[in-house]
């Protein structure tokens, strides 16, 4: 499969097979791709029915560079022992590896290791805040504010918290362009009952990039606490939790080139100190007697039991890899590729993209519907060309309701994607429309 570099003519892949596609105005303006790292990802060497793997589902989970796979294997094969317990040399190595991973992860986001908690995933990180902070800070008559564009992980924990505590859950509305309204945020905060505002940094359906720093400043001025879901943001743009000003910032390793089973919660020191623990048991205690226990210091107070040690090491390697690429460059790559994707999607008759129209206003994904083709069929037709996209409600059923659809198809880009992946998708969609005689 020939590689595209800048504006060139390239053979169309997929059901059309072999015919040269002539360069269009869209090609001429297709910006050079900022990254060329496909070769770093072993899985992308796989062929499906003789076709290269065109993976456009990084919003769901990312593929892993060889260095991450090797780091996991090396840890398990050379430095494996339990942490925080052993005196022997091997245990010291495991300890050092785990804490080095924490330090790498923390500094990747400009955070402090002391307030960087490892969890299983971002869903657990949000649940941690809902249980440990929510249940001691939200009560009858209080309100929790979220948005219509949230992933279920940033909806359901708050629904339950509010039901249990007699509080109200309110939603910031999303407009036609997929944006929130600062005026509505101010109006909600002015009601004086909001204790927490939880919202996403980048929407996994709309691609909207929310103005986090501006929002957290307003939230803090109103005396409320902010929690930001950074699952889609961290893999694709520079994130500095200090500059963003969120009291809690949660993300997950498996979307950021790391393994599954490792999530991260960055929290405000004072809030974390004041919170009771979430999960309890070993490691999060300082001492236990027959009557009760005292808690360990941060961050261990929130890390009960044996942590995902190898997974943390894997994530440490992942953030080092991303640091090597440079997150500014990653953002440029994904933005340019998304601009290319939007431009090419516009060629498909009856196709409607939801969310912000400009690539510069969105993260590296595009959710869309095609008239006459249900998203599930769209994904099936794409699969035939070796193109992986997602179809469904993307764990955002309330948002689907707002959009007036049951489901959408979604293509999302990662550092390893190239214009050929987008081309293969478009070819598959056009071929699919023919199959359905549209």
């Amino acid at each position: 499969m020939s590689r595209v570099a800048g504006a060139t003519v390239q053979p169309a892949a997929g059901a059309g097979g072999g015919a040269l596609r002539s360069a269009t105005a869209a090609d001429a303006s297709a910006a050079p791709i900022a990254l060329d790292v496909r070769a770093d990802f072993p899985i992308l060497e796989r062929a499906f029915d003789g076709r290269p793997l065109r993976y456009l589902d990084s919003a769901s989970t990312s593929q892993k560079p060889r260095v991450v796979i090797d780091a996991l294997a090396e840890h398990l094969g050379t430095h494996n022992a339990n942490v925080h317990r052993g005196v022997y040399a091997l245990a010291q190595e495991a300890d050092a590896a785990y804490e080095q991973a924490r330090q790498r992860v923390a500094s990747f986001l400009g955070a402090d290791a002391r307030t960087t908690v490892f969890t299983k995933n971002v869903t657990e990180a949000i649940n941690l805040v809902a249980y440990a902070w929510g249940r001691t800070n939200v009560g009858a008559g209080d309100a929790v504010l979220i948005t219509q564009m949230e992933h279920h992980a940033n909806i359901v924990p708050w629904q339950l918290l509010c039901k249990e505590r007699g509080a109200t859950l309110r939603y910031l509305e999303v407009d036609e362009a997929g944006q929130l309204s600062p005026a509505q945020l101010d109006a909600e905060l002015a009601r004086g009952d909001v204790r927490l505002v939880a919202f996403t940094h980048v929407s996994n359906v709309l691609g909207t990039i929310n103005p986090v720093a501006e929002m957290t400043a307003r939230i803090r001025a109103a005396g409320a606490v902010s929690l930001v879901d950074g699952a889609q943001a961290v893999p694709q743009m520079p994130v500095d939790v200090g500059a963003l000003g969120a009291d809690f910032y949660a993300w997950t390793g498996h979307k950021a080139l790391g393994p599954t089973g490792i999530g991260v919660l960055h929290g405000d020191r004072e809030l974390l100190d004041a919170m009771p623990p979430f999960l309890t048991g070993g490691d999060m205690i300082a001492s236990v007697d027959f009557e009760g226990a005292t808690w360990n210091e941060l961050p261990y107070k929130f890390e009960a039991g044996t942590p995902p040690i190898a997974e943390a090491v894997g994530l440490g390697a992942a953030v080092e890899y991303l640091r090597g690429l440079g997150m500014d460059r990653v953002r440029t790559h994904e933005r340019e590729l998304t601009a290319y994707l939007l431009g090419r999607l516009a060629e498909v008759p009856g196709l409607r993209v939801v969310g912000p129209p400009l690539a510069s206003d969105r993260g590296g994904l595009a959710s869309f519907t095609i008239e006459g083709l249900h998203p599930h069929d769209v994904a099936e037709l794409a699969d035939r060309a070796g193109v992986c996209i997602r179809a469904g409600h993307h764990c955002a059923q309330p948002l689907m309701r707002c959009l007036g659809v049951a489901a959408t198809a979604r293509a999302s880009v990662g550092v390893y994607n190239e214009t050929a992946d987008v081309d293969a998708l478009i070819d598959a969609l056009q071929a699919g429309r023919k199959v359905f005689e549209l």
Partner: protein
Amino acid sequence: MDDLYRDYILDHYKRPRNFGELEPHDLEGEEHNPLCGDELGVHIRVQDGRIADLRFHGHGCAISQASASIASEELMGMELAEVERLGADWMIDLLGIPVSATRRKCALLNLKVVRGAVTGDHDWPA
């Protein structure tokens, strides 16, 4: 010829048989396939222990809608006792196309909603 989207499948998808509402009706059901956003409802009129008339309604992928349309022609006039005995194999055989594990739920949605309406059992298939 396409493996999955054969002419008759697409025909049933674009021109579904026995789709709409049925008033009055004796039995009704609603099911969703949350994974992909397929929804299907059914209205059934019963006479002498048989399905005297039925209508499906809803939106979904080509497989879920075509399966409902194809099944509707067989279900028309069927004894309720026989409906209760219908299994997944019946539907898959009726479709006559290879259905992957992921699309199975789409193909079986219509039978799930009909069984739910007739037996009150919403946990099928187990």
